[in-house]
């Protein structure tokens, strides 16, 4: 796991926000980034590798966004480790959660928690 290599990238950029917004990619190989602050629709997030994503729904700190386009059925890495497979195509910057990601080891049989 590469949590220790986390580099904090307050996504200010010009996403010229009045309030700095943040996310972090926990490992260089990760397919998702993690929000370090809660965000609202319309918020823009930027990063050092030309990331520029517009948020389309309210999301709490700790939720995930796709760091790149992910195909249906692809294994998704966080912390540099597989955390599940995509159940539909996911665009870069899109919210990644139970609606488009499921466990490889123990999928939820009856719906999703929460």
């Amino acid at each position, binding site marked *: *796991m590469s*949590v*220790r*290599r*986390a580099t*904090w990238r*307050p996504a200010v950029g010009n996403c010229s926000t009045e309030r700095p917004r*943040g996310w*972090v990619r*926990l490992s260089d190989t990760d397919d998702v980034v*993690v*929000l*370090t*602050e809660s965000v609202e629709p319309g918020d823009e997030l930027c990063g050092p590798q030309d990331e520029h994503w517009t948020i389309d729904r309210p*999301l*709490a*700190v*700790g*939720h*995930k966004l796709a760091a790149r386009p992910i195909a249906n059925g692809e294994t998704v890495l*966080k*912390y540099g*480790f*597989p*955390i*599940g497979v995509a159940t539909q195509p996911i665009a870069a910057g899109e919210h*990644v*959660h*139970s609606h488009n*990601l*499921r*466990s*490889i*080891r*123990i999928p*939820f049989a009856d719906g*999703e*928690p*929460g």
Partner: protein
Amino acid sequence: MSDVPASWPAYLRADGRKGIRNVLAVVYLVECAHHVAREIVAPFSGTGAQTIGFPGCYPNSYATDMLASLCTHPNVGAVLLVSLGCESFPRAELQARVAASGRPVRTIVIQESGGTRGTIEAGRAWLSEQLPLLRDGARTTMSAEELIIGALCGGSDGTSSLTANPAVGRAFEMLVADGAGCIFEETVEMVGCEDDLAARAVTPALGEALRAAVEKAARYSAAMGWPSFATGNASGGLTTIEEKSLGAYSKSGRGPIHGLLKPCDTPSRGGLYLLDVVPDGDVRWGFPNINDSTEIAELISCGAHLILFTTGRGSVVGSAISPVIKICANSETYARMSDDMDIDAGRILGGETTINAVAEEICRVTMATAAGEPTCSEGLGHQEFILGYKSFEPTGPDCHPGFVPLKPFVDALAV
């Protein structure tokens, strides 16, 4: 860690073990004796007298071993056993095991001592006599390579894996490099981490034992129908058990794993150990951990002098016998409950500090606590304790490989 003291004053027990607290344990041997034990302790609150015990009336060798380990724990200096009289607990065996450690021990049987009132009087008289002796007991000095530290998380949320857990993992790397014994657990939340666990083991045989421990936990959880994934995990941004597991697993850091323990196994030397708390054999004892306090008691049974406890939602628990240091994963919770929290790791989220800096703070607070500084939960009087039924097979030789020199991994990991 140049600002961390190299050694500090400690309590020396007759068996040579060194403690960082000076506890007189009053132990009820069945729930029927619990009130009497609590009443014996009440007037001595804050003086080192603490209540622990086992509620069951039927014998269980795990429970006997747990109480024997806890009564001979280095933080414990004297023991009063309180028996109703007709329970099945082998009180003579426990008394003998404590006496063999050189600790003062006495058993009072309620049915033979005038019932509630007579037992409370006799118990308090013994405490009045023993507590001053305990305070005047032998002292020594102690250093990091003699310290055993446990870690667990409770009330986790989506921030735990970003801040407090990896900070504890990094602190464990630093503490192991200083020679301490560090213990992590929660195999039920290591599904998906088996390959990495096995690869970190210092021997291939230990790697297979670690893998088997997680597989046992997964089997046990499935048989219990235990959804190790709650609504609060999902609303906090966690999607799968693998993801939740990796966050919990980050408390172990990235160093080599030197052994696999079961409750009451004490690490014989410094290093990083996984504690397997899932019972062996058929599923018959209910949930492996009905709450965080069961896990804390098991870490302490392995000799943990103190406990690092990460929390996102905000747990308040402490423990009997060993102090609990709370590391809060986000600053919102910290602001709401700062009296209960020793360290605010949430500052990492805002970029105000780093995982490394919080890890160093954890090491400093660990040493200060070892040197006698009370933690928040100690200051608030928390002394939670719980013990239930379980059964374990002894760990095999593969779980305790011979000494393997530590790799210089801390330097390699420096950011």
